[in-house]
């Protein structure tokens, strides 16, 4: 930990100025060695100085150097930021000089890790910083900022305090059993309090689902028989919305065919045709890969042919997807009607013709409706934005279910407090109020370099 670390903290190649950040005990000393200007060891904290970065006597770049001394800095260590003006090659040269003079290249997320380890920020804030850096859309940025300002921490803390006060009351009852002065908590009195907290957690989870959508977008799987028009649907969607990315091989997803933005939310379009070379997707539904795509998708669009009878397999698939967000898109309405619509048990049916762009509006409106995208835009963001936090809240909720089960079974209050404490611990883990070794590496390895 005592190393002085450095990294380019702006995106390489973007913009005219790049900033190199140096943090650690020796940062001032090291930069001073390669800085031609005022003696940085003598300057006040939080001041900016003009000069040159030099290699021996040759000038590398004209720079502004910001000196920020511990502890009032991002990492709570001495930090120097060098604003380089000379483009990529001179920035790289400056970085190299720093490394030669005793700095170590920062690992991804190491600045934020130090900020956390030095008590500058809590875990949620740390995670949000990572999200902020990686955020692609405005909404995402807003979500990340919300985490940074500690909104979630505040909410979680409030819930924890409620539970702590229940447990404190139980404890007092145990330690002073004979004193009538203190309200005696019984199962009957605890129950509504626990139900209320559970409700709060459920609300948070639901809102976090939206947070996840903002952050990761909506995964949309397009399925259907061959020649039903899946590809043309996909192409029309992408074509009309100028695909941002195409053919990105993901690690969890198999293939993302493209992304479009709808009401500021990213839709990750996955064409299952990509994994089905020759055979019918519906026939291959037993195949794990296709199933997995459909399972993991937030939305499935099943494309049917207006001009054909509906098959049993298609009907089975609709039945299987009953509990998922499903849109049945009936394509080729320009042809003669053969399909028996009455057999389709799905409330989201959209008719269309992929050749006709206007019909796509109806499909998009349906997506906006299903995910309430209008509302996401206007509501304020108090969301948990990553899956670690969400799963902890789910665990916390499970603890409360156990409390309620205990109440049903007439378990004594002091036993209930065990599950209440478990819930408090899970929530504490979200805001880093408890120590867990594995946790830290896990979180900080996801960080980008330079923060």
């Amino acid at each position, binding site marked *: 930990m005592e190393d002085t670390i450095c990294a380019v903290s702006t995106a390489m190649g973007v913009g005219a100025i790049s900033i190199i950040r140096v943090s650690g*005990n020796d940062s001032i000393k090291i930069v001073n060695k390669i800085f031609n200007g005022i003696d940085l060891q003598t300057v006040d904290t939080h001041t900016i100085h003009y000069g040159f970065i030099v290699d021996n006597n040759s000038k590398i770049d004209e720079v502004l150097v910001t000196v920020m001394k511990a502890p009032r800095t991002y990492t709570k260590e001495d930090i120097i930021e060098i604003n380089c003006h000379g483009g990529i090659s001179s920035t790289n040269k400056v970085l190299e000089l720093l490394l030669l003079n005793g700095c170590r290249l920062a690992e991804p997320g190491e600045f934020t890790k130090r900020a956390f380890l030095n008590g500058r920020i809590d875990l949620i804030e740390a995670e949000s910083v990572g999200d902020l850096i990686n955020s692609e859309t405005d909404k995402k940025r807003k979500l990340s900022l919300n985490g940074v300002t500690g909104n979630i921490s505040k909410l979680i803390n409030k819930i924890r305090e409620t539970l702590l006060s229940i447990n404190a009351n139980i404890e007092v009852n*145990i330690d002073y*059993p004979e004193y009538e002065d203190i309200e005696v908590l019984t199962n009957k009195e605890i129950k509504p309090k626990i139900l209320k907290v559970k409700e709060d957690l459920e609300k948070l989870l639901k809102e976090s689902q939206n947070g996840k959508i903002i952050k990761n977008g909506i995964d949309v799987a397009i399925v259907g028989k061959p020649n039903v028009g899946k590809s043309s649907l996909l192409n029309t969607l992408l074509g009309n919305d100028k695909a941002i990315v195409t053919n990105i091989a993901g690690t969890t997803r198999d293939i993302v065919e493209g992304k479009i933005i709808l009401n500021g939310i990213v839709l990750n379009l996955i064409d299952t045709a990509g994994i089905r070379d020759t055979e019918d997707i519906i026939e291959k539904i037993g195949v794990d890969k296709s199933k997995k795509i459909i399972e993991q998708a937030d939305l499935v669009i099943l494309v049917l042919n207006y001009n054909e009878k509906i098959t049993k397999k298609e009907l089975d698939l609709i039945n299987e997807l009953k509990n998922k967000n499903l849109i049945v898109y009936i394509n080729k309405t320009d042809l003669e009607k053969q399909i028996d619509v009455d057999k389709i048990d799905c409330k989201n049916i959209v008719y269309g013709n992929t050749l006709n762009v206007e019909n796509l509006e109806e499909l998009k409106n349906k997506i906006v409706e299903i995910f309430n995208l209008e509302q996401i835009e206007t509501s304020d963001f108090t969301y948990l934005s990553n899956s670690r936090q969400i799963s902890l809240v789910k665990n916390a909720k499970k603890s409360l279910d156990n409390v309620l089960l205990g109440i049903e079974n007439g378990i004594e209050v002091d036993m209930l407090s*065990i599950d209440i404490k478990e819930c408090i611990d899970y929530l504490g883990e979200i805001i880093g109020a408890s*120590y867990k070794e594995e946790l830290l590496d896990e979180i900080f390895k996801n960080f980008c370099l330079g923060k």
Partner: protein
Amino acid sequence: MFYDVIVVGGGHAGCEAAHATATIGLKTALITANIKNIADMPCNPSIGGTAKGIIVRDIDALGGLMGIVADKSHIQIKMLNNGKGPAVRSLRAQADKITYPKIMLETLKNTKNLTIIEGMVEDIIVENNKVVGIKLEEKIINCSALILTTGTYLKSKILIGNTNKLEGPHGEKRSNHLSDRLKELGFDILRLKTGTPQRIDRNSIDFSKLKEETGDDVYWTFNCENEIYYDKDKQAKCYLVYTNEKTHKIINDNLEKSAMYGGYAEGIGPRYCPSIEDKIVRFKDKERHQLFLEPESLYYDDIYIQGFSTSMPIDVQEKMVHSLEGLENAKILKYAYAIEYDAINPLQLKPSLETKIIENLFTAGQINGTSGYEEAAGQGIIAGINAAKKLKGKEPLILKRNESYIGVLIDDLVTKGTKEPYRMLTSRAEFRLLLRHDNADLRLRKYGYEAGLITKEKYNKLLEKENNINKLLDELKELKITKNNITKNILNIIKDNNFNTSINLYDFLKRPEININLLIDENILEKKYTKEVYDQVEILIKYEGYIKKELKEVEKLLKLESKKIPKDIDYDKIINLASEAKQKLKEIRPLTLAQAARISGVNPADLSILAIYLKKEYGKDEH
């Protein structure tokens, strides 16, 4: 003159410590200023209470005296929290203040290798940071180990209103030099305060106006062998009294006369037994506070008013007492007083209770900043065991937080320190479901046996019990209840006339309405073990889910506990540690990462830094 071990102070800590070292086989001297005050109870006339009762059980399981002496001398006993879960049940006995010390003294006199000496210790003799003896007023006694259990006698000061006397409880001589000497040796001295309420003449109380509090109608014992020494039908009574508006007005009108509020005291008192003026100031809205009248002894007339401790001057105390219903004409035999005394900072102790500064010097009881007879005795027996282990070159006995309330107590003291007299509470124990009244012997007997305090015969009894518990658990998993052997009675209880399955008794017992006694009564289960075995098995089955949960937490703790911090670690080398954490770690020098985690002021982030440093510096051999 030479003794292997000298114990200074004959209070509850001293008695246990001296009894332990002597029983283990070390030549022991117990020094007391007044032999009449051996095992004295200067405050409340009770042993046990929530959490404290379990400490007494733990002391007994280890082979200590407090439990058995309380069993032989109490005049009333009850199980507190009996309506709650098994984890929080705890015994409290009204101990007779004449009989308890008398039986303790007899027991000590009959303990082999133990000599009781009357005298005041003037000095501790230390050579090369190792204790070698003590100086009494007239002679020097040498020793290999010294255990200080001086209670409240270090520079004690008795406060009543604005008057104070430089003496210990009962007007005994205080120790004037010892705390100065300890300071000289490098100890950080704390000034603490505690108090005790009035004693009232039994004959002057109108009991007809008061509510009776009786003992339980079943037999209970602190001792693990379940030997009964009392008649449950002949227990003494306690009584309930309440403060009222009048009482509160008297107190509020006279607040500035109280030693505490008038600024006449400097010591820090316990939050957990506040004086009555504290309670009235802090809880303004409370219309009344509950008080208990407890008889001190069958042999004299003093009644103790539990909950009425105060440092008001005596004229105000008269008015306060007389404002209580039933006590209008009460005669005060002893006025309430506050007492201030010196204690050492327990952060200067190792978990073995040996001091960090002076080798072979151990301390136990109130000198370590605790309050309560049970807390003192619990430390006393551990100090005794560890002094003996030290002299024999063995590893100390350090009870873990998941093993005993005594472990929790000592760990809290040496890890967190204390600013006020430390009282044990169930909420201080994170694994209280494992630290039950009913399983003290199963948790701790083995340590008592290993230390040499429990005889082979007693230990074998425990092994047999353990064995029977396991046998019964196995049997219950084998035996089944089916539609063929289920009885009408049970069908009625489970309200299921179509009982058609076959289920083993183990799972059947998990139903809230079923218990082992019922199965025995209905001849589904044969009775062949002791009641304790059945009780134990029932708890293990009924609360299995919760117990498993705590065991999982224990596992996490033990994992952290296994991460030892090297003794020679240089915290100054860990640059990124927050300065508060660094200072605390340097002071306390925790033995493990788990202990470090419990230090207040060391937050999770500091712990991470420490863990990362340990991994980096000592990675290969420690992790």
